[in-house]
């Protein structure tokens, strides 16, 4: 009797797991199917004609997708550079120097993430429009950097906090200047955490839709905007292929994040 009950429980658990897998993976499978469906209409449950015609259309050097991909990557690279240029000094100050009202400053960097952002973006767009930079790559980079700053500042502060102070003291004792100590001891040791924060900011910028929608349109078209336009225009193939391109860095990041972000750094985030 007990064996029957436990067998039944196993079957139920396996069934629940299968249902979970279906709802988790199903939407992604649907996306992949659409990307290779040259013709697919009701009442057919699967594509009628499979093919790579739309992939060729998307990857044509003159195609919109390649131009949008280039714009997206360019914006993301500039965003990372700007965010790191601001967050490395800020992170160092927050982790290592005596700063009055430190908790207040930490919260201040968090705020752009802790507020619903649409109302902020519409007013940023208005200001940018007035000073004539709306619709430029520069404007989009500024918006993405402000958004990514919480990750880069908080993770950089955690990475600097995780660096052993004795190593810095040792360098100072053998005669290194504070600046030399920073560049030859502190920064290299904090680098894995800072690289991780850079990757995070890069991905956030690549995936960002709302800010670009208000500040970049119509001159700047990033991949998420291309995806949105294709989807709303009913071109599910181009939308799905663009979505798959956007998935690649996200999935790679998920697989590699553990290598970059060490547990001792993670434990100090927000501390």
């Amino acid at each position, binding site marked *: 009797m007990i064996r029957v009950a436990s067998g039944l429980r196993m079957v139920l658990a396996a069934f629940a797991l299968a249902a979970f897998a279906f709802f988790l993976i*199903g939407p992604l499978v649907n996306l992949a199917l659409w990307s290779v469906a040259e013709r697919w209409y009701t009442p057919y449950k699967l594509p009628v004609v499979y093919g790579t015609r739309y992939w060729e259309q998307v990857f044509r050097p003159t195609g919109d997708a390649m131009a949008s991909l280039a714009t997206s990557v360019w914006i993301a690279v500039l965003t990372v550079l700007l965010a790191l240029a601001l967050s490395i000094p*800020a992170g160092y100050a927050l982790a290592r120097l005596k700063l009055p009202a430190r908790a207040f400053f930490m919260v201040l960097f968090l*705020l752009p993430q802790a507020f619903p952002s649409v109302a902020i973006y519409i007013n940023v767009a208005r200001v940018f429009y007035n000073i004539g930079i709306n619709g430029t790559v520069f404007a989009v980079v500024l918006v993405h950097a402000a958004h990514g*700053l919480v990750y880069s500042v908080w993770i950089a502060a955690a990475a600097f906090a995780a660096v052993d102070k004795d190593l810095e003291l040792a360098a100072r004792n053998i005669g290194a200047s504070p600046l030399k100590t920073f560049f030859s001891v502190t920064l290299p040791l904090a680098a894995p955490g800072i690289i991780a924060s850079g990757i995070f900011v890069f991905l956030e910028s690549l995936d960002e839709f709302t800010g670009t929608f208000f500040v970049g349109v119509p001159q700047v078209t990033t991949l998420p905007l291309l995806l949105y336009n294709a989807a*709303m225009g009913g071109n599910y193939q181009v939308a799905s292929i663009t979505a798959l391109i956007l998935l690649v860095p996200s999935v790679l990041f998920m697989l590699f994040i553990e290598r970059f972000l060490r547990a001792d750094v993670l434990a100090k985030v927000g501390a």
Partner: protein
Amino acid sequence: MSLSQRNLALLLIAPGLALVAALFLYPLCFSLISAFTGPQGGFSLQAFGKAWELYSGDVVFTVVIVLASCFFTGLAAIIIAGTLTLGENRWIVGTLKALYRWPLFIPFIVAAQCMRTFLAKNGLMNNSFVSLGLIEPLQAVSYLDWRGIIATFVWKQTPFVALLLAGALASLDRATLEAGRNLGASRMRVLVELALPQVMPQLLVALVLSFVTMLSVLSVPMMVAGSQPTMLTVDMAFRINAYGDYATANALGVITYLISAGAAIIYLKRGMAKENTP
């Protein structure tokens, strides 16, 4: 001239703060002032009157969608994290562990595109149900409305909440949990009565973050459910793009701040409490 450490710290932090001030604090103040200013200037609640008259239904809709999404996200995360921590079947735990994180870093806009095709009347979900004989072809309905938004939010946010929760559960003292099991409590009971109360702070913080995130998303309600009623983010974009009506859009913005304020206060209180503990 040598700088004091305090001044050096302020100098190093200033450029970052300047960017936050210019691109967050200034527009925030601007949205507040614009929402409370009448057409002739001066203090006025006119924009709120108009916002409420046109969009009160969407305010309620937004709150219900976000609360329901948080509820189901929390429930799914508890089931996943609970199974990962207390599950005894290695095969099930292993499969779940390999699967559950997939949507974690997937952008909202990609999630929206996935669901747009998956949940449609002739999407993969309905087609699979018909093929399995679970429903008749005529029973297939489109879920591209409020149900689609909730499904997308839960699909996207559950891994994040489950990840934080599983981390917190894994760091609990195993001895108490084992003791509960040895005394004859079921795994369900150990999870609900012993483990969950200890990790409530982490669950709460993860859900508050998810709450504000969902409240800010524009792509999902636009792509998954375009028609009325819709979420406030779509209404704001519409007021700006169609009418250039900043006053009403900013009034709606202030309403979203107020909705998230409750959640943010809980979050900040937790942060401050943590800051004060030695």
